[in-house]
């Protein structure tokens, strides 16, 4: 990885955090793919492209952190709704517990840079 390759840095950071961002969005209630993509895509730092959400959702479902059901939509065909499971909620709590001290540690080191 080139030192100035911001894209590669973002990719690495997203890989470890984006799934928890999805869980955090679902903590507010079940949601469908496009809605999640819109919420996360509002901040371009979080999301590279909307399509990358779907492999992530598949992974979360396989881990049983998210469960997927079909629900009717008032505007068109039924949609896949994704909801947080108890395991997903536990995983999210674990991430939140670690995230604050992790971020503080990184901030402390980065602020000391010339």
């Amino acid at each position, binding site marked *: 990885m080139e030192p100035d390759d911001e894209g590669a840095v973002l990719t690495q950071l997203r890989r470890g955090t984006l799934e928890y961002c999805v869980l955090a969005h679902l903590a507010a209630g079940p949601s469908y793919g496009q809605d999640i993509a819109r919420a996360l895509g509002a901040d371009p730092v979080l999301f590279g492209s909307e399509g990358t959400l*779907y492999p992530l959702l598949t992974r979360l479902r396989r881990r049983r952190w998210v469960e997927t059901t079909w629900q009717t939509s008032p505007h068109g065909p039924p949609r896949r709704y994704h909801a947080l499971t108890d395991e997903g909620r536990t995983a999210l709590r674990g991430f939140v517990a670690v995230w604050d001290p992790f971020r503080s540690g990184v901030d402390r080191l980065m602020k000391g840079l010339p």
Partner: protein
Amino acid sequence: MLTTSPLVAAYLADLDRALAGAEPADRLEIVDSVAEHIDAAVEELGASPTQAQVAGVLRRLGTADDVAAAWAGAADRPLAGAYPVWSAPSAVALPAAGAARSTPTWVVVLLVLVGLAVLAPALLLVVGGVMFASVGSAPPGLPTIGVLIVLLVCTVALGIVWRRATTHRRAWLIGFIVALLVLLVSAGMAGLASRSGTAPQGGPTVVVETAP
């Protein structure tokens, strides 16, 4: 379904090819989810969106290779080269599952045992069905109703296992109902054949003796 635009069809075909290394269930789920996303996004554009607008929807999704690379990353499969910048337009060869690390023996044994436990109802169903169909009734020594109950339980057990393995509820439901109907019709026909086959047993017995 609105994903009838040639652009969308080509994109989904590319995505399907790019996910060639994924497990079939994952591949189907990802492609279906992306198609659903496109449907919803295109629908929001109005009654007759332009090709440029549809192209915009696809651009926001990222390339098919981006999505496939995200799957490879999400599945903890390390990719060679500069992830996620891929230049190949399609047919991305993703590493096979488990290629990145060696699997301990006990895990293999456990997986085989679990696989056998899942396959047991299927094997029972096939073996029982073949015996039932070939004999026209239950195998000798087994009550017909018992064999029917075993076949029915196996079918339901398989249905439950498959249901848990997929989110495509409609396809699963149709397949399950068809399988159940086929089983019931086969059982009915076998029952009829069995009844007509046993009828002569109650009648007079003809003994043919051959001359020495």
